[in-house]
């Protein structure tokens, strides 16, 4: 019997295997941020340990930093101390750090691929659950906690048990205006927030093969929202084309060797998965969440559900609670929901293709009066690229705000927040209670739905603008 992609990558990284114990797995790249690392570095200091492989460790300021007025001191003293602590730790332990304002700074899951540091067949971890993003390259990439981060810093390994594998087959063509964000939201609605628990989701099929690397990253990014440890896509020509020539990608003879190896990682034809689920691409339409977990979603053409229509009593209770929090009446058409703000950005949808798609919708149009639209590029490079293409002008002319790179309003750790009771159409990844600010109400959408919603003020698709 053959091996799946996940099994191949896992097996190539086993340092030690013993019955009854987790495998000791080598980690090729450890990404570090200011929020989940201070206690890990402190642990090293207290035990007199060092960072084993600073050369395989990259630190980033992304979570709590402001996205405006970068030259002023950070106003919030607690955030400022956290940033200062990361800087001191990186200096003390010789870890490379991209600070805010640096041309390579950005959300670490946007920057890794951009630099070519994310490559097929690698193991990548970070104290951030959206590390699953890097799985789009066929890298086994997953979020870890701070204790595990300390373990990786000290030993460059992680002790872990192999994940189960789930094939997610998506065949056919996506309709115009339907993006990989809609696909992943539809999948999560189908299998639930716990549906992927314990699994690596491997996205396969002709619809996935037709996607760009950036679209693939959006899907893998939200695998965690289905409860999965990671998302994976087999490396193919699209992957190679993306990587070739990037700063940290192999070159010359190394490229030949590496690319042959990468292409060999695809799951074998006779590999067996622990579970399988199938979506028909043609059935998927623009999607939006109505509740307070990412599985509570529906097509934009639909309406807010009636809790009593859920057969499961717990789902019914969860829907009732969610609608009360969201301030929504059952039966309301999704297209009748009015929003106060729109957020375009995050590690899910803050890449150049996302900005291009949204800008195309906004070109020559205006954000609805009274509505706030915040556009936050996923990295400084994305920002520079967007400005070279004139996208910033389109956003600014439409009445949106154009910011520096960071996690921003996805999780409201910096001043970019949605106010209490305010409703936001957001291209981010989580619609949890209070996620974007205390009392905030989030509807997860794709970049083009976000743009159309900003124009009309109600949840809309670009087709509604005609």
């Amino acid at each position, binding site marked *: 019997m053959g091996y799946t992609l996940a099994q191949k990558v896992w097996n190539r990284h086993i*340092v030690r295997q013993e019955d009854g114990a*987790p495998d*000791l797995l080598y980690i*090729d*790249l450890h990404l570090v941020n200011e*929020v*989940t690392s*201070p*206690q890990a570095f*402190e*642990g090293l200091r207290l*035990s007199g*340990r060092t960072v084993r492989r*600073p*050369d395989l*460790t990259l630190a980033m300021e992304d979570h709590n930093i402001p996205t405006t007025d970068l030259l002023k001191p950070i106003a919030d003293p*607690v*955030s400022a*101390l956290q940033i200062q*602590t990361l800087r001191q730790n990186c200096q003390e332990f010789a870890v*490379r750090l991209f600070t805010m304002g640096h041309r390579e700074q950005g959300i670490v899951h946007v920057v890794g691929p951009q630099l070519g*540091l994310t490559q097929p067949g*690698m193991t990548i971890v970070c104290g*951030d*659950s959206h*590390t699953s993003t890097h799985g789009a390259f066929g890298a086994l990439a997953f*979020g*870890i*906690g*701070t*204790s*595990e981060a300390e*373990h990786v810093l*000290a*030993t*460059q*390994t992680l*002790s872990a048990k192999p994940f189960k594998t789930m094939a997610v087959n998506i065949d056919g063509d996506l309709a115009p205006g339907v993006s990989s964000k809609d696909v992943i939201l539809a999948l999560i609605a189908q299998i639930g*927030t*716990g549906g992927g*628990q314990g699994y690596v989701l491997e996205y396969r099929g002709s619809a996935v093969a037709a996607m760009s690397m950036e679209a693939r990253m959006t899907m893998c990014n939200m695998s965690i929202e289905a*409860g999965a440890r990671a998302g994976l896509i087999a490396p193919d020509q699209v992957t190679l084309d993306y990587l070739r020539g990037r700063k*940290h990608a*192999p070159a010359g003879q*190394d490229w030949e060797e*590496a690319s042959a*190896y990468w292409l060999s990682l695809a799951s074998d034809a006779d590999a067996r998965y622990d579970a399988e689920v199938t979506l028909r691409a043609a059935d998927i339409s623009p999607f939006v969440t109505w509740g307070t*977990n990412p599985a509570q979603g529906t097509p934009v053409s639909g309406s807010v559900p009636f809790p009593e229509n859920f057969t499961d009593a717990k*789902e019914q*209770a*969860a829907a009732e*609670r969610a609608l009360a929090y969201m301030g929504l009446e059952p039966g309301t058409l999704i297209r009748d929901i009015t929003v106060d703000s729109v957020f375009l950005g995050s590690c899910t949808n803050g890449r150049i293709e996302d900005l291009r798609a949204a800008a195309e919708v906004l070109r020559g149009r205006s954000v609805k009066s009274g509505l706030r639209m915040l556009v936050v590029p996923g990295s400084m490079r994305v920002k520079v690229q967007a400005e070279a293409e004139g996208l910033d002008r389109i956003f600014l002319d439409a009445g949106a705000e154009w910011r520096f790179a960071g996690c921003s309003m996805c*999780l*409201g*750790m910096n001043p970019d927040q949605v106010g209490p009771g305010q409703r936001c159409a957001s291209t981010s990844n*989580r619609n*949890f*209670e*209070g996620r974007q600010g*205390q009392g905030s109400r989030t509807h997860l959408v794709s970049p083009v739905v976000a743009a159309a919603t900003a124009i009309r003020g109600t949840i809309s698709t670009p087709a509604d603008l005609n």
Partner: protein
Amino acid sequence: MQKFSTHTGTGIPLRRTNVDTDQIIPSTFLKRITRTGFEDALFAQWRKDPSFVLNQPAYRSGSVLVAGADFGTGSSREHAVWALLDYGIKVVVSSRFADIFRGNSGKAGLLAAQVSEPDLALLWDALDSDPGAEIRVDLPDQRINCADLTVPFDVDPYVKWRLERGYDDISLTEQHSSLITAFETSRPRFMPACSN
């Protein structure tokens, strides 16, 4: 990490599913750089509601949280585990845990005890019929007692072994540092490094 064998304490019924880590500890508290002192952050939003279970006198000194399926979904923040521990929670009982949360619990010394859906309902009923009732959690036997109810729970055997001994993961791994060094010499040359 402290050793864990058995624990007896007041059970807290949290009848909600999908208790995500943004609820357990909102992101605003993640700016702190300490590993302790998060007790005020636990369920910070929900605790503003006087009817929330932790605000009811019977459960104020509770230490065994009994919650619905998909506990700990969302962010990887280990602060969620620290906040539970700092508040005084020693055990979380649920019918399903998010993977990263469960992993973090095992590393930080919080027992995440998984029970079946029917047993979870029985525990909730037992706690509701006698608010403030004690629960006894026995790790070696993997059993939970509440009044005359006894239910089994699942825990990863390796995590159990470590919790019972209070072993620190890093020291265990450092015993194999020669294997790590050997592995490093076999890595392909084309693998990237951040430093160049």
